[in-house]
């Protein structure tokens, strides 16, 4: 066993760029004694199950014989039977999955090497080189290789970016439009919508909540944090014009999009498109946009509010849509805070969800980068799995989605995970908890809404689940993992309406149970 290990480590040290001769011994000790810090059981089981049918492809039939690097990495893999013993502790499936697990092990090891006060960037570099070898077939651009190889390649890229320039990945979401042309971006977006309920779940749940809140209103004003292409509003408009027979004509819909930086032209284009679509439906519509401040904060005063209209704030926070700028946490916070001042009736929010192990941890800050990295790895492997389970034959289509949408998402997530520990104000955590602390109240998700979500999921392959989490939140999950949540909130009354005797709104402290009331049978329920 030792000789095998040493040979491998020999390879490693040869191929690394820094001088590591003196560290060979350290590596040997490290590698032979190494055990992953985290508990692999919840992670390896789904991995093993879903990649069972990739065993054949793992026995690489298409490796070019004149490619020595690939060959040597392959031969290492097949010769690594001694390592199986260690790996088998974590895997119940056969040989093919060992490679998957090794990839994962290596990723986590690299993350750990970058974590905390005992950072060891050189080790990370070396591990990444090894990783690159193993996923060489995946070639992120070509979309080949197995699913998990591509996943590992994206994460490896992200880590490499951290090492190189402090910014993960070679294409953060912001740059997506530089690296990929718009048609590709949109095509990938369309594909993602077709292959998973990820996008539609958030849109439809939020729209239904908005519909219910504005049931009898004449004018509806939506303030959208991240309008992107405006896709969400097409179905809202449709729903407004097709309200059950006997209803008054559709209300006037005004959408104010929050724009940042120099995105003005794209936003105007979106506005034009939405206006055209509304016209085609006969939906009265107007569009405007407001800018974020120089410090990327939202100022409620920048939104023009007309008397008599119902204001609704929409906050889509999953990274497939939003960019991963620095300071994003602050702009989201300012947006949500502004809800009270604008007198919004409801705030709809869609954000990513973690699996519930966070509850065990004492505090957010104690999760190091490695732990957050693992959470992101888990999350994206779940997404990967879900896409593959539904569309195993459409590898190229999936590859496109992975490349154009998920890859940048991964880079952004790794970036955020890295910065969270380092900078103040970068901590995002769970926005649901944040707004609860701010005094937002929960607005119940109606029967209709829940039913709609279930029906939507029924259109996709088995494995997606939706469940309620409290009365105001629906969570979309794949098998046992949570992916995304859609929640509905009512902001606290604006400060200037509070009587002098009432207590001020507590900011930043955990609220007592008195702040959350539930609207169970009010006019919010659409029945």
């Amino acid at each position, binding site marked *: 066993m030792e000789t095998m290990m040493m040979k491998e480590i020999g390879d490693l040290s040869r191929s690394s760029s820094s001088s590591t001769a003196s560290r060979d011994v350290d590596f040997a000790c490290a590698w032979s004694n190494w055990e992953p810090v985290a508990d692999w059981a919840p992670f390896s089981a789904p991995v093993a199950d879903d990649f069972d049918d990739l065993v054949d492809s793992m026995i690489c039939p298409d490796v070019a014989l004149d490619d020595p690097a690939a060959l040597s990495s392959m031969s290492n893999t097949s010769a690594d039977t001694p390592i199986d013993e260690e790996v088998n502790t974590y895997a119940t499936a056969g040989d093919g999955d060992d490679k998957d697990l090794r990839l994962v092990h290596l990723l986590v090891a690299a993350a750990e090497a970058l974590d905390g006060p005992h950072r060891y960037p050189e080790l990370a570099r070396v591990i990444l080189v090894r990783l690159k070898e193993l996923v060489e077939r995946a070639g992120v651009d070509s979309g080949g290789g197995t699913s998990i190889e591509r996943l590992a390649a994206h994460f490896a890229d992200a880590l490499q970016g951290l090492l190189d320039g402090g910014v993960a990945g070679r294409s953060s979401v912001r740059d997506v439009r530089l690296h990929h042309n718009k048609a590709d971006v949109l095509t990938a977006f369309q594909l993602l919508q077709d292959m998973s309920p990820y996008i539609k779940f958030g849109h439809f749940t939020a729209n239904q909540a908005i519909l219910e809140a504005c049931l009898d209103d004449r004018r509806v004003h939506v303030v959208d944090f991240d309008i992107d292409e405006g*896709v969400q509003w*097409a179905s809202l408009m*449709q729903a407004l014009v097709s309200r059950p027979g006997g209803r008054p004509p559709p209300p006037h819909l005004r959408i104010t999009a929050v724009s940042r930086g120099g995105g003005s032209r794209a936003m105007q284009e979106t506005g034009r498109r939405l206006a055209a679509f509304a016209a085609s439906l006969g939906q009265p519509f107007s569009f405007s946009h407001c800018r974020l401040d120089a410090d990327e904060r939202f100022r409620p005063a920048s939104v023009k509010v007309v008397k008599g209209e119902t204001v609704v704030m929409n906050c889509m926070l999953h990274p497939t849509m939003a960019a991963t700028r620095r300071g994003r946490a602050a702009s989201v916070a300012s947006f949500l805070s502004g809800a009270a001042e604008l007198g919004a009736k409801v705030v709809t929010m869609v954000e990513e969800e973690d699996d519930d192990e966070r509850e065990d941890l004492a505090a957010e800050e104690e999760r190091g980068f490695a732990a957050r990295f693992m959470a992101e790895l888990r999350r994206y492997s779940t997404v990967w799995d879900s896409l593959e389970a539904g569309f*195993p034959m459409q590898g190229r289509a999936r590859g496109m989605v992975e490349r154009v949408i998920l890859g940048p998402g991964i880079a952004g997530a790794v970036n955020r995970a890295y910065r969270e520990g380092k900078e103040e104000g970068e901590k995002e955590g769970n926005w649901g908890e944040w707004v609860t602390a701010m005094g937002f109240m929960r607005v119940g998700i109606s029967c209709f809404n829940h039913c709609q979500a*279930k029906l939507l999921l029924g259109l996709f392959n*088995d494995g997606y689940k939706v469940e309620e989490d409290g009365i105001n939140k629906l969570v979309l999950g794949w098998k046992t993992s949570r992916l995304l949540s859609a929640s509905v909130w009512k902001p606290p009354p604006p400060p200037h309406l509070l009587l002098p005797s009432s207590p001020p709104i507590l900011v930043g402290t955990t609220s007592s149970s008195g702040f959350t009331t539930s609207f169970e049978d009010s006019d919010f329920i659409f029945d």
Partner: protein
Amino acid sequence: MFPSKKPTNINPPPMCVQADSGLVLTTDPKPRLRWTVELHDRFVDAVNQLGGPDKATPKTIMRVMGVKGLTLYHLKSHLQKFRLGKQPHKEFNDHSLKDAAALELQRNAASSSRIMGRTMNDRSVQVTEAIRMQLEVQRRLHEQLEVQKHLQIRIEAQGKYMQSILEKAYQTLAAEGMPSGVGYKELGDQALDASMGFPSPHDLQLYGGSDHQVMDLQQQMNQSLDGFLLTNNSNNDNDNACLGKKMRPHHPYMNPNEKHPFLWDDDLQVQEEASKSDQIQVAPPDRGEGIDDIDDVYEAKPAAGMLSADQSAGLEKKFEGPSSHGWHQTDDDRTWQLRPSKKLVL
């Protein structure tokens, strides 16, 4: 779902008596607790104290109520019934609506027949109860259909909007003369549609009701969208004739089954984008088959339709699961086969 009852450790008294704690117990092989109004009130109080039927657990309720002789077993079943009564829509989760209601009826019937000392009034209350349950089931079914119809319309709208964006983008691309990595036309015969399970308007007619409204909507949209469309395929002339009868396969906007042409199988050739100035359309005119065959497809579809009348509570959805065929012709006939997968989980 009828929970198996463990015998409690309360010795069954010979007749209906008041135990020390004020509980009314009955005589029968399985000791049953009679939930009097007062006891139930205390129960409800305790549940509310604990934050509602979802937050409360039998253990905590038992603690809060502090009633001697009350066991977890009693509380478990009572809590379950309470929850069901409070939030009937939760039944969607596990069983079909009818089963759930039937179970409730059974349970009520069983419990009512065992408890002695029921007066005549109680029995008629039980009957009314049963009728109410039945109506409830029906109501829920209708509600579900409503939701389904709305969902379909909304998804279609979103699809149309996406199409417009995509077409614009590809137009721009063609205008700029840049090759795109993914051609628009490789829909081929193997386009997969994630939302293929939608009932056609034809199917919706089976349910009467507001399908008329749906038709109107489509007519309205058809007309107003013509201007919105970038090009108009001459094949679309079929559309008006097809209205109300079957799906219109060539109108990109009115065809949810064709709105996702991009999910090509890996073995398809990825075609470079040809000039798109005159023919940006989503329908697959390049298939070897002509229009008529595609009409066949949609005529065959109602037979395999999602909301066929002979299905009871289950709504069957056709989702083309993983297969190397996608849409394909069977060898024997010219109809497209959709592989039915699973029932919609209600």
